[in-house]
């Protein structure tokens, strides 16, 4: 380990801890204009006219833009192009933007935005997804012909036969809520027209390449006409994709039309009103179980509220479908999944991506089934869970990597002394006011995109004549530490100190489109590309220098900032080696591409090798529930995840803890509330994410089984850490109170709704 690799090192830590890191809103530009979005108060309505004159005449306003001003495509989207840059034919949800005011100051833009009037004919609002599926309901998108946006299905074995073989049938319905990502930095964009006509985009977004696609389509220009530049970003969690890209596209439009730099900085209320949320799910399960506690069949019906636009609902619901039976072997499985348009707030990607909802339900189903079969939840899981060589419900054989289900379960049981503590749970009876419970949940998760889409990633290593190195990849720094992890992989692979390597400022004009930094794919895909690029570079250097080192190219070694021959006596320093490369007219430059191995999917049967590899995790939590108030207090929590290889253990732990915290919010605190389609909790005083006192001490157990399919050995952690805390809490609350909770967030009987936070006075 070099000095800089010491615990906690990150390439951006110094800048962030000193306040020097410049986020988008911190950048300075001269001659800057400011923009503000305009909303209407309709939820579903046919637009008659948008009257902008009063706003245009307001002193300091430069221009008011509407759909009419979009030279390119006003409709955008990653799957279905139904999302509007500006609402045109209809208003489909309360967060639809009808216009944008551009002014000399932000205050003026905001004040003038209130002067834009929308005349529209209200239509009945479709607010319940199951009602939306009924044939006679008003359509959100008339040209789609139905409110059912998409379906997925699984047909495996024979569920009727499976239910006949069962001794018990368990049927339950679960329901989850709208959840806000609550990144600390709201959406913001600054777009700058360059003298050569290119528009530079600085923004808080986690997908520079889709931002570029949205922006170029909106402006009607080629991809090369837009350059999206990476700047430090205050969190994404899946939430800075579509909406953030559209914020950039609108801002770029103003910059292009007015030929001046334009900034649009979102207020928190706009961000929560407009940005997409985690899908609320309704999940209907039917499970057949033998007397010995073996699952014979599972039937599952999933209804996901997509809100007003498609976003990535088909992909989110696909993961839910593939993982609908949890990490269990089920020979007879049937699943029908529906993504449904409504006039509620749009829903899309959020950390977990369709798995937290399913795990909340399934990890309670297995414990209910265990109870019927007279087994402990642990024993029931052991009798049914996937093991080395098992088949998933989509017919994929789990091999080629270590199936670590038992390993993560054992680790958590041991860490928590779980089985001993389970015998001390209150089950509703206690001499004191506090009921005690412990609970756990586990999951497996397909890594990266799977059959959702094209999955490959590029990296460039560009060594300089003095031995310093520039690295860049197609992965985006969302705040998770992606750049630092990739720098570490590069340094280790080349055998050099990390202080030699700088991460090049990311730009969509430098590196090929490597997809989104989502799906916990940053380290596995980016790390794969860096590893392959480093191997390519070493191959070039070895070929050029092997003669000098008196050995064959394949015997050349890279270690301690040196390039070595067969023995340590034949040695060239990395600096001298790079100089020699340049002198012999060879660039020490390598381009690496990691392509995800092939996956397969049959949409009709829901069978196929859905993901190229899988990760395994288990989390447990201890808590008390106050008998009178119903208040839940978390005492202690532990998590074990197989991460493949921990590139940077401190950052991996950070992903564990952050995921567990967000899972706690999902389980106990958070809910975007809608009244008649309008969100009522638009800021952090009423939308309550977990605070320091809400969380327990957490323990992270890193399980490392390097994956042969991953060039760096690393797999995933961002989302796995977030997807099983809520069911662990639900199971612990059951063990404390004897009561099951089927909807989120959990409110134990007697618990008052959490009061709004007091805010500081003006």
């Amino acid at each position, binding site marked *: 380990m070099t000095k800089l690799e010491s*615990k906690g090192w990150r390439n951006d*830590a110094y800048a962030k801890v*000193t306040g020097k890191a410049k986020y988008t809103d911190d950048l300075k530009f001269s001659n800057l204009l400011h923009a503000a979005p305009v909303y209407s108060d309709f939820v579903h309505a046919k637009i008659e006219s948008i009257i902008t004159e009063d706003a245009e005449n307001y002193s300091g306003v430069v221009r008011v833009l509407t759909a009419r001003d979009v030279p390119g495509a006003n409709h955008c989207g990653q799957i279905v192009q139904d999302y509007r840059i500006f609402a045109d034919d209809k208003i489909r949800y309360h967060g639809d933007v009808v216009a944008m005011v551009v002014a000399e100051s932000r205050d003026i833009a905001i004040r003038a935005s209130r002067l834009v009037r929308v005349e529209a004919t209200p239509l009945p609002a479709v607010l319940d997804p199951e009602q939306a599926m009924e044939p006679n309901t008003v359509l959100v998108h008339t040209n789609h012909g139905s409110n059912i946006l998409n379906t997925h299905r699984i047909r495996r074995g024979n569920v009727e036969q499976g239910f006949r073989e069962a001794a018990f049938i368990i049927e339950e319905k679960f329901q989850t809520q709208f959840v806000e990502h609550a990144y600390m930095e709201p959406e913001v964009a600054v777009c700058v027209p360059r003298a050569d006509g290119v528009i530079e985009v600085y923004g808080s977004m986690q997908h520079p390449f889709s931002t570029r696609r949205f922006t170029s389509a909106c402006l009607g220009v080629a991809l090369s006409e837009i350059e999206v530049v990476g700047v430090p970003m205050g969190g994404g969690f899946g939430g800075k994709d579509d909406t953030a890209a559209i914020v950039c596209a609108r801002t770029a439009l103003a910059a292009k039309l007015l030929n001046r730099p334009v900034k649009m900085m979102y207020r*928190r209320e706009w961000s929560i009103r407009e940005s997409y949320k985690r899908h609320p799910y309704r999940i209907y399960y039917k499970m057949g179980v033998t007397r010995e506690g073996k699952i014979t069949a599972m039937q599952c019906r999933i209804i996901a509220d997509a809100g007003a636009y498609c976003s990535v609902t088909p992909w989110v619901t696909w993961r839910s479908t593939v993982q609908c039976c949890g990490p269990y072997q089920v020979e007879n499985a049937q699943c029908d999944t529906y993504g449904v348009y409504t006039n509620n707030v749009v829903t899309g990607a959020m950390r977990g991506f369709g798995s937290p909802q399913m795990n909340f339900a399934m990890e309670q189903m297995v414990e209910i089934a265990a109870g019927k079969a007279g087994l402990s939840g642990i024993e029931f899981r052991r009798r049914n869970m996937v093991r080395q060589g098992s088949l998933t419900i989509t017919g994929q054989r789990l091999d080629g990597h270590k199936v670590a289900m038992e390993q993560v379960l054992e680790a958590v049981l041991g860490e928590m002394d779980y089985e001993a503590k389970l015998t001390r749970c209150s089950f509703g009876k206690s001499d004191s006011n506090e009921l005690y419970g412990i609970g756990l949940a586990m999951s497996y998760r397909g890594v990266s995109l799977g059959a959702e889409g094209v999955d490959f990633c590029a990296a460039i290593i560009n060594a300089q004549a003095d031995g310093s190195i520039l690295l860049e990849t197609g992965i985006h720094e969302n705040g998770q*530490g992606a750049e630092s992890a990739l720098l570490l992989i590069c340094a280790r692979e080349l055998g050099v100190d990390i202080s030699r390597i700088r991460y090049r400022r990311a730009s969509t004009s430098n590196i090929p489109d490597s997809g989104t930094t989502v799906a916990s794919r940053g380290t596995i895909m980016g790390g794969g590309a860096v590893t392959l690029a480093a191997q390519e570079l070493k191959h070039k250097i070895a070929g050029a220098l092997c003669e000098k080192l008196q050995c064959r190219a394949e015997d050349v070694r890279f270690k301690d900032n040196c390039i070595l021959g067969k023995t340590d006596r034949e040695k060239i320093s990395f600096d001298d080696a790079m100089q020699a490369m340049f002198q012999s007219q060879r660039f020490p430059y390598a381009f690496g591409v990691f392509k995800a191995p092939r996956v397969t999917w049959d949409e009709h049967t829901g069978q196929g090798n859905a993901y190229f590899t899988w990760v395994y995790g288990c989390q447990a939590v201890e808590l008390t529930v106050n008998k009178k108030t119903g208040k839940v207090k978390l005492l202690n929590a532990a998590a074990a995840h197989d991460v493949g290889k921990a590139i940077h253990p401190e950052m991996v732990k950070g992903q564990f*803890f952050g995921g567990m915290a967000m899972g706690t919010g999902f389980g106990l605190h958070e809910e975007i509330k809608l009244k008649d389609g309008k969100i009522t909790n638009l800021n952090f005083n009423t939308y309550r994410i977990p605070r320091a006192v809400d969380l327990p001490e957490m323990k992270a157990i890193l399980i490392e089984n390097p994956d042969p399919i991953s060039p760096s050995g690393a797999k995933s952690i961002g989302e796995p850490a977030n997807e099983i805390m809520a069911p662990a809490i639900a199971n612990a609350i059951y063990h404390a109170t004897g009561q099951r909770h089927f909807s989120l967030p959990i409110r134990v009987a007697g618990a008052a709704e959490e009061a709004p936070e007091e805010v500081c006075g003006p």
Partner: protein
Amino acid sequence: MKLHINGKEMEVGRELAEKRLVEFLREDLGLTGAKNACDIGACGACTILIDNEPLKICMKRVKDAEGRRVLTIEGMAAPDGTLHPLQQAFVESGAIQCGFCTPGMVLTAHALLLRNPLATREEIRKAINGNLCRCTGYQQIIDAIQKAAFHYQRQPCEQKHEIAAAAN
């Protein structure tokens, strides 16, 4: 109007008295460590110290800082750039992810440790309860604050001297 910001005294015109303090720091002084994130004093991303007490300034005015000692995140490190032990502990503990809450979090922790260098983990949780973080689950932030507490205990006199030097 006299302001003391990060150890420097400055005179600013009365016409700035009603300006939002956070905008004054960010726009007029280029001190962008204090962030705009909720605008209603609910998240703590704009926290600075005034007379060594944490204050959310998104709803405060420049006049609220008149004649008082202001410390922003930019005033924490030594003039040569050496990190304050608390900042160093944040780095070493893995307490930084997206970094948007970090300036406010460091300053709130600094105020706590000046007041109570023996703070328990429970006391640390209470002290940082008004500073929201979505990335870390607070675990490594609390580790960092505990780790740095040692420095505040060991050198109370020197530490106070340093702070006094920075703020006066």
